[in-house]
Protein backbone atom coordinates (compact mmCIF):
# COMPACT_ATOMS: atom_id res chain seq x y z
CA UNK A 1 0.00 0.00 0.00
CA UNK A 2 1.23 3.49 -0.77
CA UNK A 3 0.40 4.78 2.74
CA UNK A 4 2.59 2.26 4.46
CA UNK A 5 5.45 4.69 4.58
CA UNK A 6 3.56 7.04 6.93
CA UNK A 7 2.85 4.40 9.55
CA UNK A 8 6.45 3.34 9.85
CA UNK A 9 7.36 4.10 13.49
CA UNK A 10 9.62 7.10 13.67
CA UNK A 11 13.03 6.45 15.18
CA UNK A 12 13.88 8.34 18.34
CA UNK A 13 15.67 11.23 16.67
CA UNK A 14 12.70 12.11 14.51
CA UNK A 15 9.87 14.31 15.76
CA UNK A 16 6.38 14.47 14.34
CA UNK A 17 4.55 17.57 13.25
CA UNK A 18 2.65 18.02 16.53
CA UNK A 19 5.76 17.80 18.68
CA UNK A 20 7.57 20.18 16.36
CA UNK A 21 4.89 22.84 16.61
CA UNK A 22 4.58 22.37 20.37
CA UNK A 23 8.33 22.90 20.71
CA UNK A 24 8.22 25.87 18.37
CA UNK A 25 5.35 27.41 20.35
CA UNK A 26 6.99 26.87 23.72
CA UNK A 27 10.29 28.18 22.38
CA UNK A 28 8.76 31.40 21.06
CA UNK A 29 6.81 31.81 24.28
CA UNK A 30 9.95 31.56 26.39
CA UNK A 31 11.80 34.00 24.13
CA UNK A 32 8.87 36.42 24.42
CA UNK A 33 8.82 35.99 28.23
CA UNK A 34 12.55 36.65 28.49
CA UNK A 35 12.11 39.69 26.22
CA UNK A 36 9.29 41.00 28.38
CA UNK A 37 11.42 40.60 31.50
CA UNK A 38 14.31 42.51 29.92
CA UNK A 39 11.92 45.16 28.61
CA UNK A 40 10.28 45.59 32.02
CA UNK A 41 13.66 45.88 33.74
CA UNK A 42 14.83 48.50 31.25
CA UNK A 43 11.63 50.46 31.51
CA UNK A 44 11.69 50.48 35.31
CA UNK A 45 15.31 51.76 35.48
CA UNK A 46 15.30 55.49 34.85
CA UNK A 47 18.06 56.68 32.51
CA UNK A 48 17.94 60.30 33.62
CA UNK A 49 17.66 61.22 37.28
CA UNK A 50 16.56 64.62 38.46
CA UNK A 51 18.53 64.30 41.66
CA UNK A 52 20.89 66.88 43.20
CA UNK A 53 24.44 66.84 41.82
CA UNK A 54 26.86 64.75 43.88
CA UNK A 55 29.39 67.60 43.76
CA UNK A 56 28.86 70.19 46.48
CA UNK A 57 30.47 73.60 46.81
CA UNK A 58 31.07 74.05 50.54
CA UNK A 59 32.36 77.63 50.28
CA UNK A 60 35.57 79.31 51.40
CA UNK A 61 37.85 77.41 53.82
CA UNK A 62 37.91 80.49 56.06
CA UNK A 63 34.29 79.72 56.92
CA UNK A 64 35.42 76.64 58.86
CA UNK A 65 37.49 77.50 61.94
CA UNK A 66 40.11 75.00 63.06
CA UNK A 67 38.82 72.09 65.16
CA UNK A 68 35.27 72.57 63.89
CA UNK A 69 32.72 70.05 62.53
CA UNK A 70 30.06 71.52 60.25
CA UNK A 71 27.03 69.52 59.09
CA UNK A 72 25.33 70.54 55.86
CA UNK A 73 21.86 69.05 56.27
CA UNK A 74 20.85 69.51 52.63
CA UNK A 75 23.81 67.67 51.11
CA UNK A 76 24.30 65.25 54.01
CA UNK A 77 28.03 65.87 54.53
CA UNK A 78 30.30 67.00 57.36
CA UNK A 79 33.09 69.46 56.63
CA UNK A 80 35.72 69.06 59.28
CA UNK A 81 38.70 71.31 59.87
CA UNK A 82 41.22 69.26 61.85
CA UNK A 83 44.75 70.22 62.85
CA UNK A 84 46.07 68.22 59.88
CA UNK A 85 43.73 69.98 57.44
CA UNK A 86 40.27 69.77 55.92
CA UNK A 87 38.28 66.64 55.16
CA UNK A 88 34.68 65.70 54.67
CA UNK A 89 32.61 62.75 55.78
CA UNK A 90 29.30 61.45 54.58
CA UNK A 91 26.69 62.21 57.24
CA UNK A 92 24.47 59.36 56.04
CA UNK A 93 24.57 56.49 58.50
CA UNK A 94 25.95 53.30 56.97
CA UNK A 95 23.32 51.28 58.80
CA UNK A 96 20.01 52.28 57.19
CA UNK A 97 20.60 55.71 55.72
CA UNK A 98 19.47 58.11 58.45
CA UNK A 99 21.12 61.52 58.77
CA UNK A 100 23.57 61.54 61.68
CA UNK A 101 24.32 64.55 63.91
CA UNK A 102 27.49 65.95 65.48
CA UNK A 103 27.37 66.10 69.27
CA UNK A 104 29.87 68.87 70.19
CA UNK A 105 29.78 68.25 73.96
CA UNK A 106 30.61 64.55 73.53
CA UNK A 107 32.84 65.01 70.48
CA UNK A 108 31.08 62.21 68.57
CA UNK A 109 28.79 61.72 65.61
CA UNK A 110 25.53 59.99 66.59
CA UNK A 111 22.68 58.53 64.55
CA UNK A 112 19.18 59.22 65.92
CA UNK A 113 17.57 56.14 64.35
CA UNK A 114 19.29 53.12 65.86
CA UNK A 115 22.00 54.60 68.07
CA UNK A 116 25.19 54.13 66.04
CA UNK A 117 28.05 56.33 67.22
CA UNK A 118 31.16 57.39 65.31
CA UNK A 119 34.22 59.42 66.19
CA UNK A 120 35.21 62.55 64.30
CA UNK A 121 37.18 60.50 61.74
CA UNK A 122 34.07 58.41 60.98
CA UNK A 123 35.19 55.24 62.75
CA UNK A 124 32.42 53.39 64.50
CA UNK A 125 32.42 53.50 68.30
CA UNK A 126 29.26 51.48 68.86
CA UNK A 127 25.88 50.57 67.38
CA UNK A 128 24.59 48.53 64.44
CA UNK A 129 26.41 50.42 61.64
CA UNK A 130 28.35 47.85 59.58
CA UNK A 131 30.93 50.29 58.18
CA UNK A 132 32.61 53.55 59.17
CA UNK A 133 31.31 56.80 57.71
CA UNK A 134 33.10 57.13 54.35
CA UNK A 135 35.57 59.91 53.62
CA UNK A 136 34.55 61.88 50.54
CA UNK A 137 36.85 63.30 47.87
CA UNK A 138 37.54 66.91 48.83
CA UNK A 139 39.55 69.55 46.98
CA UNK A 140 39.93 73.27 46.50
CA UNK A 141 38.81 74.63 43.13
CA UNK A 142 40.30 77.51 41.16
CA UNK A 143 38.15 80.08 42.96
CA UNK A 144 39.50 78.85 46.30
CA UNK A 145 36.23 77.12 47.32
CA UNK A 146 36.18 73.79 49.11
CA UNK A 147 34.53 71.17 46.89
CA UNK A 148 33.20 67.76 47.91
CA UNK A 149 32.26 64.88 45.60
CA UNK A 150 29.67 62.79 47.45
CA UNK A 151 29.86 59.99 44.88
CA UNK A 152 33.59 59.32 45.40
CA UNK A 153 34.87 57.84 48.64
CA UNK A 154 38.56 57.92 49.48
CA UNK A 155 40.78 56.14 52.00
CA UNK A 156 40.62 57.84 55.43
CA UNK A 157 43.25 60.24 56.74
CA UNK A 158 43.80 62.12 53.48
CA UNK A 159 43.59 65.77 54.52
CA UNK A 160 43.35 68.84 52.31
CA UNK A 161 45.77 71.58 53.34
CA UNK A 162 44.90 75.07 52.25
Amino acid at each position, binding site marked *: MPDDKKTVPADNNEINRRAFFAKLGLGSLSIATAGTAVFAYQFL*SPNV*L*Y*EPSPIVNAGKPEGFPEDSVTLDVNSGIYLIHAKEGFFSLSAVCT*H*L*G*CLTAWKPDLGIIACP*CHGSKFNREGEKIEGPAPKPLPWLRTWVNDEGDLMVDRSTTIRPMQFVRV
Partner: protein
Amino acid sequence: MAKAIENYFDDLRNTRIWRSIFRSGTGSSTLHRSLAIQQNVFLHLFSTKVRRRMLSFNATWYLGTLTFGTFLILVSTGILLMLYYHPSVPQAYADTKDLQFVVSDGLFLRNLHRWSAHAMVFLVFAHMFKVFYRGAYRPPREFNWVIGVILLLITLFLSYTGYLLPWDQLAYWAITVGSNIASAVPVVGNKVHFLMLGGNLVNANALLRFYVLHCMILPLAAILFIAVHFWRIRKDGGLYHHQSEPRTMAVQAAAAGKADQ
Protein backbone atom coordinates in the same frame (compact mmCIF):
# COMPACT_ATOMS: atom_id res chain seq x y z
CA MET B 1 -47.93 44.32 58.79
CA ALA B 2 -44.97 41.96 58.60
CA LYS B 3 -47.05 39.77 56.32
CA ALA B 4 -47.75 42.72 54.05
CA ILE B 5 -44.07 43.54 53.75
CA GLU B 6 -43.27 39.90 53.04
CA ASN B 7 -45.94 39.81 50.33
CA TYR B 8 -44.59 43.01 48.86
CA PHE B 9 -41.10 41.50 48.54
CA ASP B 10 -42.51 38.28 47.12
CA ASP B 11 -44.31 40.31 44.48
CA LEU B 12 -41.15 42.26 43.80
CA ARG B 13 -39.18 39.04 43.29
CA ASN B 14 -41.78 37.89 40.78
CA THR B 15 -41.60 41.00 38.62
CA ARG B 16 -40.13 40.58 35.18
CA ILE B 17 -37.23 42.93 35.86
CA TRP B 18 -36.22 41.16 39.05
CA ARG B 19 -36.46 37.77 37.35
CA SER B 20 -34.32 39.02 34.47
CA ILE B 21 -31.55 39.93 36.94
CA PHE B 22 -31.87 37.09 39.46
CA ARG B 23 -32.81 33.93 37.61
CA SER B 24 -33.03 31.56 40.56
CA GLY B 25 -36.71 32.36 41.11
CA THR B 26 -38.78 32.64 44.22
CA GLY B 27 -39.37 29.98 46.79
CA SER B 28 -37.54 28.77 49.84
CA SER B 29 -36.88 25.18 48.85
CA THR B 30 -33.31 23.90 49.18
CA LEU B 31 -33.01 23.99 45.41
CA HIS B 32 -34.07 27.63 45.18
CA ARG B 33 -31.76 28.67 47.95
CA SER B 34 -28.86 26.77 46.38
CA LEU B 35 -29.54 28.38 43.02
CA ALA B 36 -29.59 31.84 44.63
CA ILE B 37 -25.97 31.26 45.68
CA GLN B 38 -24.82 29.34 42.62
CA GLN B 39 -26.19 31.77 40.07
CA ASN B 40 -24.80 34.94 41.60
CA VAL B 41 -21.42 35.95 40.24
CA PHE B 42 -20.19 37.12 43.66
CA LEU B 43 -21.81 34.45 45.83
CA HIS B 44 -20.94 31.50 43.60
CA LEU B 45 -17.42 31.61 45.03
CA PHE B 46 -18.92 30.38 48.31
CA SER B 47 -20.43 27.07 49.27
CA THR B 48 -24.19 26.71 48.79
CA LYS B 49 -24.37 24.89 52.10
CA VAL B 50 -22.69 25.78 55.37
CA ARG B 51 -22.78 23.91 58.67
CA ARG B 52 -24.96 25.92 61.00
CA ARG B 53 -22.38 25.92 63.76
CA MET B 54 -19.73 27.32 61.40
CA LEU B 55 -21.82 30.49 61.25
CA SER B 56 -21.63 30.97 65.02
CA PHE B 57 -19.19 33.53 66.38
CA ASN B 58 -17.21 30.87 68.20
CA ALA B 59 -16.29 28.93 65.09
CA THR B 60 -14.21 31.65 63.40
CA TRP B 61 -14.63 34.81 65.50
CA TYR B 62 -15.47 36.24 62.02
CA LEU B 63 -11.83 37.30 61.67
CA GLY B 64 -11.60 36.65 57.91
CA THR B 65 -14.88 38.42 57.24
CA LEU B 66 -13.82 41.37 59.39
CA THR B 67 -10.52 41.59 57.50
CA PHE B 68 -12.44 41.68 54.23
CA GLY B 69 -14.70 44.36 55.75
CA THR B 70 -11.74 46.59 56.56
CA PHE B 71 -10.46 46.00 53.01
CA LEU B 72 -13.78 47.24 51.59
CA ILE B 73 -13.63 50.33 53.82
CA LEU B 74 -10.04 50.96 52.68
CA VAL B 75 -10.96 50.71 49.00
CA SER B 76 -13.92 53.07 49.29
CA THR B 77 -12.22 55.68 51.49
CA GLY B 78 -9.01 55.37 49.47
CA ILE B 79 -10.78 56.15 46.20
CA LEU B 80 -12.29 59.25 47.79
CA LEU B 81 -8.93 60.40 49.18
CA MET B 82 -7.45 60.05 45.67
CA LEU B 83 -9.75 62.84 44.50
CA TYR B 84 -7.83 65.41 46.58
CA TYR B 85 -4.33 63.94 46.67
CA HIS B 86 -1.62 64.68 44.07
CA PRO B 87 1.37 62.32 44.23
CA SER B 88 3.97 65.03 43.60
CA VAL B 89 6.69 66.46 45.82
CA PRO B 90 5.40 70.03 46.08
CA GLN B 91 1.78 69.00 46.63
CA ALA B 92 1.63 65.71 48.52
CA TYR B 93 2.19 67.11 52.01
CA ALA B 94 -0.01 70.16 51.41
CA ASP B 95 -2.81 67.95 50.06
CA THR B 96 -2.61 65.73 53.13
CA LYS B 97 -2.90 68.79 55.34
CA ASP B 98 -5.80 70.07 53.24
CA LEU B 99 -7.56 66.75 53.71
CA GLN B 100 -7.12 67.16 57.44
CA PHE B 101 -8.07 70.81 57.81
CA VAL B 102 -9.81 72.14 54.71
CA VAL B 103 -11.76 69.45 52.85
CA SER B 104 -15.23 68.75 54.28
CA ASP B 105 -15.20 65.35 56.01
CA GLY B 106 -11.61 64.90 54.80
CA LEU B 107 -10.38 64.37 58.35
CA PHE B 108 -13.03 61.67 58.89
CA LEU B 109 -12.17 59.85 55.65
CA ARG B 110 -8.44 60.03 56.20
CA ASN B 111 -8.72 58.79 59.77
CA LEU B 112 -11.11 56.05 58.71
CA HIS B 113 -8.57 54.98 56.06
CA ARG B 114 -5.73 55.05 58.55
CA TRP B 115 -7.50 53.24 61.38
CA SER B 116 -8.89 50.63 59.00
CA ALA B 117 -5.37 50.04 57.70
CA HIS B 118 -4.13 49.42 61.23
CA ALA B 119 -7.16 47.23 61.94
CA MET B 120 -6.62 45.23 58.76
CA VAL B 121 -3.01 44.38 59.66
CA PHE B 122 -4.12 43.39 63.15
CA LEU B 123 -7.05 41.30 61.86
CA VAL B 124 -4.94 39.52 59.24
CA PHE B 125 -2.57 38.38 61.98
CA ALA B 126 -5.44 37.46 64.30
CA HIS B 127 -7.05 35.46 61.47
CA MET B 128 -3.79 33.64 60.79
CA PHE B 129 -3.24 32.82 64.46
CA LYS B 130 -6.78 31.51 64.71
CA VAL B 131 -6.33 29.35 61.61
CA PHE B 132 -2.94 28.17 62.80
CA TYR B 133 -3.94 27.18 66.33
CA ARG B 134 -7.12 25.51 65.10
CA GLY B 135 -4.99 23.50 62.67
CA ALA B 136 -7.15 24.69 59.76
CA TYR B 137 -4.07 25.10 57.55
CA ARG B 138 -3.62 21.33 57.25
CA PRO B 139 -4.49 19.32 54.14
CA PRO B 140 -6.63 19.69 52.14
CA ARG B 141 -6.45 23.41 53.00
CA GLU B 142 -2.68 23.82 52.73
CA PHE B 143 -2.82 25.73 49.44
CA ASN B 144 -5.32 28.22 50.87
CA TRP B 145 -2.81 28.86 53.66
CA VAL B 146 -0.25 29.73 50.97
CA ILE B 147 -2.74 32.14 49.37
CA GLY B 148 -3.25 33.57 52.86
CA VAL B 149 0.48 34.19 53.27
CA ILE B 150 0.51 36.00 49.90
CA LEU B 151 -2.42 38.12 51.12
CA LEU B 152 -0.50 38.87 54.34
CA LEU B 153 2.45 40.12 52.27
CA ILE B 154 0.16 42.21 50.06
CA THR B 155 -1.40 43.74 53.19
CA LEU B 156 2.02 44.62 54.59
CA PHE B 157 3.20 46.09 51.27
CA LEU B 158 -0.01 48.15 51.10
CA SER B 159 0.71 49.49 54.58
CA TYR B 160 4.31 50.24 53.69
CA THR B 161 3.56 52.01 50.40
CA GLY B 162 0.72 54.00 51.96
CA TYR B 163 3.06 55.17 54.72
CA LEU B 164 5.11 57.29 52.29
CA LEU B 165 2.20 59.16 50.74
CA PRO B 166 1.70 61.91 53.39
CA TRP B 167 5.30 62.92 52.51
CA ASP B 168 6.14 64.15 56.01
CA GLN B 169 9.35 63.57 57.97
CA LEU B 170 8.04 60.33 59.47
CA ALA B 171 7.17 59.00 56.01
CA TYR B 172 10.44 60.14 54.43
CA TRP B 173 12.72 58.55 57.02
CA ALA B 174 10.62 55.43 57.38
CA ILE B 175 10.90 54.78 53.64
CA THR B 176 14.60 55.71 53.65
CA VAL B 177 15.22 53.12 56.35
CA GLY B 178 12.84 50.56 54.81
CA SER B 179 14.29 50.82 51.32
CA ASN B 180 17.82 50.53 52.74
CA ILE B 181 16.77 47.22 54.28
CA ALA B 182 16.06 46.06 50.71
CA SER B 183 19.66 46.97 49.78
CA ALA B 184 20.83 44.33 52.25
CA VAL B 185 19.60 41.58 49.89
CA PRO B 186 22.71 39.73 48.67
CA VAL B 187 24.03 40.58 45.17
CA VAL B 188 20.90 42.30 43.78
CA GLY B 189 20.14 44.46 46.85
CA ASN B 190 21.28 47.76 45.38
CA LYS B 191 19.44 47.10 42.12
CA VAL B 192 16.23 46.30 44.02
CA HIS B 193 16.67 49.53 45.98
CA PHE B 194 17.19 51.51 42.76
CA LEU B 195 14.18 49.96 40.99
CA MET B 196 11.95 50.37 44.04
CA LEU B 197 12.71 54.08 44.43
CA GLY B 198 13.22 54.83 40.74
CA GLY B 199 16.48 56.52 41.76
CA ASN B 200 19.06 56.62 44.54
CA LEU B 201 17.05 58.81 46.92
CA VAL B 202 13.52 58.90 48.26
CA ASN B 203 12.33 61.52 45.81
CA ALA B 204 9.65 62.35 43.23
CA ASN B 205 10.04 59.01 41.42
CA ALA B 206 9.77 57.06 44.64
CA LEU B 207 6.62 58.93 45.64
CA LEU B 208 5.00 58.20 42.28
CA ARG B 209 6.04 54.54 42.26
CA PHE B 210 4.70 53.99 45.77
CA TYR B 211 1.46 55.77 44.80
CA VAL B 212 0.92 53.54 41.77
CA LEU B 213 1.73 50.44 43.80
CA HIS B 214 -0.55 51.57 46.62
CA CYS B 215 -3.55 52.61 44.53
CA MET B 216 -3.42 50.24 41.56
CA ILE B 217 -1.09 47.26 41.52
CA LEU B 218 -1.38 46.03 45.12
CA PRO B 219 -5.17 46.48 45.48
CA LEU B 220 -5.77 44.63 42.17
CA ALA B 221 -3.48 41.83 43.31
CA ALA B 222 -5.31 41.76 46.65
CA ILE B 223 -8.73 41.48 44.96
CA LEU B 224 -7.48 38.66 42.75
CA PHE B 225 -6.04 36.64 45.61
CA ILE B 226 -9.03 37.35 47.90
CA ALA B 227 -11.29 35.85 45.20
CA VAL B 228 -9.11 32.73 45.00
CA HIS B 229 -8.97 32.59 48.82
CA PHE B 230 -12.78 32.59 49.12
CA TRP B 231 -13.26 30.15 46.27
CA ARG B 232 -10.78 27.72 47.79
CA ILE B 233 -12.86 27.55 50.98
CA ARG B 234 -15.59 25.89 48.93
CA LYS B 235 -13.17 23.76 46.93
CA ASP B 236 -11.45 22.50 50.08
CA GLY B 237 -14.71 21.33 51.60
CA GLY B 238 -16.03 24.39 53.39
CA LEU B 239 -14.85 26.10 56.53
CA TYR B 240 -12.70 23.94 58.75
CA HIS B 241 -14.61 22.44 61.65
CA HIS B 242 -12.44 21.18 64.40
CA GLN B 243 -12.20 17.45 64.24
CA SER B 244 -9.18 17.84 66.44
CA GLU B 245 -11.28 18.38 69.56
CA PRO B 246 -10.23 15.84 72.17
CA ARG B 247 -13.59 14.07 72.23
CA THR B 248 -13.72 13.72 68.43
CA MET B 249 -10.17 12.43 68.39
CA ALA B 250 -10.98 9.87 71.06
CA VAL B 251 -13.96 8.63 69.05
CA GLN B 252 -11.88 8.46 65.88
CA ALA B 253 -9.08 6.64 67.68
CA ALA B 254 -11.58 4.12 69.04
CA ALA B 255 -13.04 3.60 65.55
CA ALA B 256 -9.56 3.16 64.09
CA GLY B 257 -8.72 0.67 66.82
CA LYS B 258 -11.79 -1.40 65.97
CA ALA B 259 -10.95 -1.32 62.25
CA ASP B 260 -7.49 -2.68 62.98
CA GLN B 261 -8.81 -5.72 64.83
